[in-house]
C-alpha cells in the first residue's frame, strides 16, 4: 500500500504521484483511489480481484453487491484495517489541516467500552481523532440529538440495543467531521427518522467537500442519496455509474409491488414471458421486462393463482433489476 505523504486540506500536492486519467478541469482529484487492488482471505479465496475505484471530494459513493462480493473488505482496505495483497491504494494523509484524523470509519463490528456511557465512548473517539475536549463534547451532543441517541447517552453501552450501538458507532465515525467517511451498512438497525438524519449527515459531509463511501443493501434509499453506485460481484467491480445512469439503462423494466390479503406462497404461480418473481409473501414483487404494459397480465396471473390483491404500486426498474441484468445474479436484499 502506498499513500501520498501530503494530504492536508491546504496542500495542493496532496495526491501527487497519482495518474488520475481524468481532465483536471472537469473532475477534482480523487480523495481516495484503489488501483488493481486484490486481496485474498487466509483460506486463499479471493475477496477482491483487481478492483479499481475512486472517490472524489464531495462525492457519495455506494458499494452494492451480494454478501461476499467484497464490499466490506474494500472498505477495510481503504480504512487501513487490512493490507492489500496486490495493487495500490492512494489515501489522504492521516491527519488533515486542523490536525484531525482525515478518516471516519464504521465497520460491521459495533464494539465499544461496554462499562462506559455512550457519551464517554463517543467523546473518547472524537478526542482520539484530534478534537479538544469541549469541541468533542459539543460535536457528540449535536450528533446524539440528530440521530435520536440523546436519551441513551448517559447509560452504559452494555445496556444499549442493537440499533443504539449502531448509532453510537456512526457518531464515533462522524463526530470529527472526517474528509473521508467509510461506512459499512450504515442504515442497518436504524429507524426511519434516524435513517433520514444519517442521510442528512452524509449529505453535509459531501457538501463540505468530503468523500463518503458506503456499503449498503438499502436500495430504496441509495438513488436519492448517492452520486455514484459501484456494483461488486464475485470480488470484482462489474458496473458503476450514477443512479440515473444505471436505472435508465433499463427503461423498459417495471416493478409491480402487490399487497395481498393474507400470505401467498406463489408455488402455482405461472409467470408470463419476461416476468420475474422477486419476492413473495404478504407482498408479492414482480419485475417485467415489458414495462408497465404487463400489469394486467401480472394481476390476472396472481388472481388465477388464488391471490387476493389489496393494492398495487408500480415503479421503475430498481437497482436490483439493474444488478441482475449486469451479473445474472440476485442481490440478496
Amino acid at each position, binding site marked *: 500500500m502506498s499513500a501520498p505523504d501530503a494530504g492536508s486540506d491546504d496542500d495542493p500536492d496532496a495526491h501527487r504521484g497519482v495518474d488520475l486519467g481524468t481532465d483536471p478541469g472537469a473532475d477534482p482529484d480523487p480523495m481516495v483511489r484503489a488501483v488493481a487492488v486484490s486481496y485474498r482471505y487466509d483460506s486463499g479465496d479471493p475477496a477482491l480481484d483487481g478492483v479499481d475505484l475512486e472517490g472524489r471530494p464531495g462525492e457519495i459513493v455506494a458499494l452494492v453487491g451480494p454478501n461476499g462480493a467484497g464490499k466490506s473488505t474494500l472498505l477495510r482496505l481503504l480504512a487501513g484495517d487490512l493490507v492489500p495483497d496486490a495493487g495500490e491504494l492512494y489515501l489522504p494523509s492521516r491527519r488533515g489541516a486542523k490536525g484531525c484524523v482525515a478518516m471516519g470509519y464504521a465497520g460491521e463490528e459495533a*464494539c465499544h*467500552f461496554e*462499562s462506559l456511557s455512550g457519551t464517554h465512548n463517543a467523546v473518547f473517539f472524537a478526542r482520539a481523532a*484530534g478534537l479538544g475536549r469541549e469541541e468533542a463534547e459539543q460535536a457528540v451532543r449535536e450528533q446524539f440529538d440528530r440521530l435520536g441517541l440523546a436519551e441513551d447517552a448517559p447509560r452504559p453501552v452494555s445496556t444499549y440495543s442493537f440499533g443504539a450501538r449502531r448509532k453510537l458507532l456512526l457518531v464515533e465515525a462522524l463526530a470529527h467531521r472526517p474528509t473521508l467517511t467509510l461506512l459499512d451498512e450504515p442504515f442497518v438497525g436504524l429507524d426511519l427518522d434516524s435513517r433520514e438524519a444519517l442521510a442528512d449527515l452524509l449529505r453535509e459531509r459531501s457538501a463540505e467537500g468530503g468523500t463518503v463511501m458506503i456499503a449498503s443493501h438499502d436500495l430504496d434509499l441509495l438513488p436519492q442519496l448517492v452520486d455514484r453506485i459501484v456494483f461488486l460481484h464475485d470480488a470484482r467491480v462489474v458496473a458503476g455509474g450514477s443512479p440515473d445512469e444505471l436505472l435508465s439503462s433499463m427503461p423498459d423494466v417495471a416493478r409491480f409491488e402487490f399487497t395481498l390479503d393474507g400470505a401467498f406462497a406463489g408455488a402455482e404461480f405461472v409467470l408470463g414471458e419476461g416476468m420475474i418473481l422477486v419476492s413473495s409473501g404478504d407482498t408479492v414483487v414482480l419485475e417485467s421486462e415489458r414495462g408497465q404494459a404487463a400489469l394486467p397480465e401480472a394481476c390476472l396471473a396472481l388472481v388465477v393463482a388464488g391471490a387476493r390483491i389489496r393494492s398495487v404500486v408500480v415503479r421503475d426498474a430498481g437497482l436490483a433489476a439493474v444488478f441482475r441484468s449486469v451479473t445474472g445474479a440476485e442481490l440478496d436484499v
Partner: protein
Amino acid sequence: MTAIVWELEWRIAFARRRLFVLNIVVPLLLVLPVALGAAPAVHAAAVYVVLFAIFSTFGSAIPLVRDGESGLSGRVLRAGVEPASYFLQRTAAGAVLDLLQLGPALAVVALGAGAGPRAFFVAVVALAATVWVANLVGVLVAAATRSLAEAALFSAVSTLLLLHASGVFRTPLPGSFGAAFESVAPFRALHEALLAMSMMTPVGGGTALGIWCFVMAVATGILAGRLSGSLGGSGRA
C-alpha cells in the same frame, strides 16, 4: 496527544467498581494466611512476589488480548491514537491501578512482618517499579499470543521464568551464570525488599530494576507499531 487513554483506563476502572474492589480483596485474602501464619520469611516473600508479579502481568496481557480480539484496540488505533502512546498510557494506568489494588496486601505483609516505615517505603517503591515492568511484559506477551488461553499460559511462563532468574525460588551458586543474571533480573529488588521487611537484610537490584523500567518502556515504544499489528491493528481478515 493528550492523555486520553490514561483517562479512559481510569474511567473504566471506576465504572467497574466491583472488579476494582475484587482486585483488592483477592490479593488480600491470598496474602493474609501467609502474613498471619508462621511461614518462614523466605518462603513468604516468594509467595508475595509471585502473586504481585503475576497479578500485574495477567492484568495487562489478558485485557489487551480481549480488546484485540473484539476489535476495540484496532478501533482505538485507527481512530488516531498513536500505538506507542496507546500502549504506554495504558500500561502506566494499569501499573498505578495495580499499585493501588496491591497496596493493602503489601500493608498487611508489612504489618505481619513488623516492618518499619522505611522498609515499607522501600517495598512500595520496589512494588511500583515491578508492576510497571510486569505490565510491560504483559504487553509483549499479549502481542505474542493469539487467544486468552495462550495469553494466560505465556504470562505465567514468562513471569515464572523471570522470577526464577531473579532468585525468588532458589539462590543461585555464587559465580554461576544464574548468579550473574540474578544481579540484573527485574524482580530481585521486590523480592529482597519483601525479605527486608522481616529480616532487615539489605535490598539490592534497585538499579537493575530502574534500568528494566526504562528499557522496557523504550522497547515498547519502539516496537509499538509492530505490537499494534498483532493486537488489532492492520492485519488479515
